[in-house]
């Protein structure tokens, strides 16, 4: 099975687009690092799952989508949401459980959503986003409205029944959906190769009679190209594809996870393949100036600092909100009783 890299693609992108992608990757990285600092300082409740090392999959995928397209995301979803246009201050406020967050602080790290941006929600249940994305795609087909929906899920999600059920229906009915697997090699602590019997996840596409490709998930342009092809395929009414991005999460499953189940050498090896460093080198080779890239880094530092300050200084929701929005309509009698 060949793995696509950006060596297979032509360097024919506008500088504006390339810098935008670089900026988003840096934005996500700095957001995640700020979140880890906040978590260690005890400023965040619950758990957070960072995508440090996986920024290229989020940015490459979202770059291939239109603003009007939709995504579903996962428990490791900050990057996907920011890539799809979510503002870092409102995502950070959601992590802080503040009323200014995308979900008024009621969802937290694993549940950022913004319907207006086409983010149908990150999801705390592994594999749960796939049928939701499929339903969104069904809606676009029924309405002939032209949007494509992209479902992010991990290697662990690919072993869930919803993977088969969703892709089977989408393939049978040619639904406009892209199934984007971020294979970061571990489902929590379990080595993916110890629980599947194929070399790649994408080759399962054959079983559904749809295209499936495996790409270097740390190569943002390779991801972009593969997803762009899958999105075009979907938008032309030809149905779903599987795009598998092989990548690695540099930090633990959640903050505080010592990752004792992974060889340290493996993590060191993947650190050398850092998607941001890799893309930065590529851009310098293309003639982008060091100054331009450093200006982006500095601007992102400032943005994330402001996002943190916004989140920290925002109020919590009023306690009267505890039962607000359980239901949309009250009916003739109290629905809360």
């Amino acid at each position: 099975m060949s793995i696509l890299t950006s060596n297979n693609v032509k360097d024919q992108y506008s500088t504006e687009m390339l810098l935008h992608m670089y900026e988003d990757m840096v934005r996500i990285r700095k957001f995640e690092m700020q979140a880890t600092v906040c978590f260690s300082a005890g400023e965040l409740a619950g758990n957070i799952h960072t995508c440090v090392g996986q920024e290229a999959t989020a940015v490459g995928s979202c770059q291939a989508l239109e603003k009007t397209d939709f995504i579903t995301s996962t428990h490791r979803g900050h990057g996907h949401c920011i890539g799809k246009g979510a503002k870092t201050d409102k995502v950070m406020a959601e992590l802080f459980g503040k009323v200014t967050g995308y979900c008024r602080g009621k969802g937290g790290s694993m549940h950022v959503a913004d319907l207006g941006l086409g983010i149908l929600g990150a999801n705390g249940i592994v594999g749960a986003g796939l049928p939701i994305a499929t339903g969104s795609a069904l809606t676009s087909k029924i309405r002939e409205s032209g949007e494509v929906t992209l479902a992010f899920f991990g290697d662990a999600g690919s072993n869930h029944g919803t993977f088969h059920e969703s892709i089977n229906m989408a393939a049978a009915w040619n639904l406009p959906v892209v199934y984007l697997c971020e294979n970061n090699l571990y489902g929590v602590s379990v080595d993916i190769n110890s629980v599947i019997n194929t070399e790649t996840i994408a080759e399962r596409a054959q079983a559904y009679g749809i295209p499936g490709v495996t790409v270097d998930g740390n190569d943002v342009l390779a991801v972009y190209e593969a997803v762009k092809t899958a999105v075009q395929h979907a938008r032309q009414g030809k149905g779903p594809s599987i795009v598998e991005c092989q990548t690695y999460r540099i930090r633990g499953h959640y903050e505080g996870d010592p990752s004792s189940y992974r060889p340290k050498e493996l993590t060191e090896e993947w650190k050398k393949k850092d998607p941001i460093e890799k893309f930065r080198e590529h851009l310098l080779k293309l003639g982008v100036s060091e100054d331009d890239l450093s200006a982006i880094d500095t601007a992102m530092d400032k943005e994330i600092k402001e996002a943190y300050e916004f989140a920290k200084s925002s109020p919590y929701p009023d306690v009267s909100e505890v039962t607000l929005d359980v239901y949309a309509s009250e009916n003739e009698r109290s629905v809360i009783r």
Partner: protein
Amino acid sequence: MRKLSMSKAIREAMHEEMVRDENVIVIGEDLGKMGSPFGVTLGFLDEFGPNRVIETPICESGFTGMAVGAAMRGIRPVVELMYVDFVGVAADPIINQAAKMRYMTGGQVSIPMVIRAPMGAGRRNAGQHSQCLETYFTHIPGLKLVCPSTPAEAKGLLKAAIRDDDPVVFLEHKLLYADKGEMPEEEQVIPLGLANVKREGNDVTIIAWSRQVLFALEAAKELEKDGIDVEVIDLRTLVPLDWEAIKKSVCKTHNVVIAQEGYKRSGFAGEIATQIMEELFDELDSPVERVAGLNTVPPYSPPLEDVFFPNSNDIVRAVKKVVSYKLYEGAH
């Protein structure tokens, strides 16, 4: 007056709502040529086409989850689980997705989705096709639950459920499908949350829903011969619960029997009994009595199934026990 069976009344409700609103679609197994096992979507595929009659493979988790995604986009899916027992394979999209999506997005989105499912014992279908599982759903905030007992109410409540912006679980007792009932001449949309007092009485209140309402009315006739004047409340919806109707009746009769077909342990009857105890303790002249299914697996063999779920004789016995209770004599 026109008479219809409950299955035809349910078909009519969905048909009228699909004609009224193009966002209403049906999703489930065997809804196409077969028209669903109980005939409730007969002819829909020809009339509305495959974009609105989504005949799925057998994958309850996948298609229920798909319906949630469609609902997030403004579609109003009416999902059919062939039997409510199959909720076991469709649990996540219902309890973790549909029920929670509005709250967890801070009110950004609602899930205007109906999950219809036949339920109940009496057809010798054994343990995996005979259960009443209301409690699975009433326990989860974010879901509403409807259990009609007559064709006209099934139609009026289903229309309200389809128009409701929240996920509504709509449970239809299999042994009521063939029962015919009078239908109103004019369109009727019955608001969720309103109980129906099916019989007025002064001595004891029987609270019931779904098929047990019919048994309660039979029991009331029988008890009349002994001079016991029974009031029967058909709750119709368990969430929202019509507490006003319960309170009014309990304050009148001061004696309560609650009849449910589902397993007694952790059943919704226990929930109602507790709420009555918490808020109306001083009104009671006797302990609240529950009539319910045995805490066993629904059996296949006819004589076993007949004793598994309660009928009017069980309700009569419970009412007699309640009205013969002498206040304070129970204490030692």
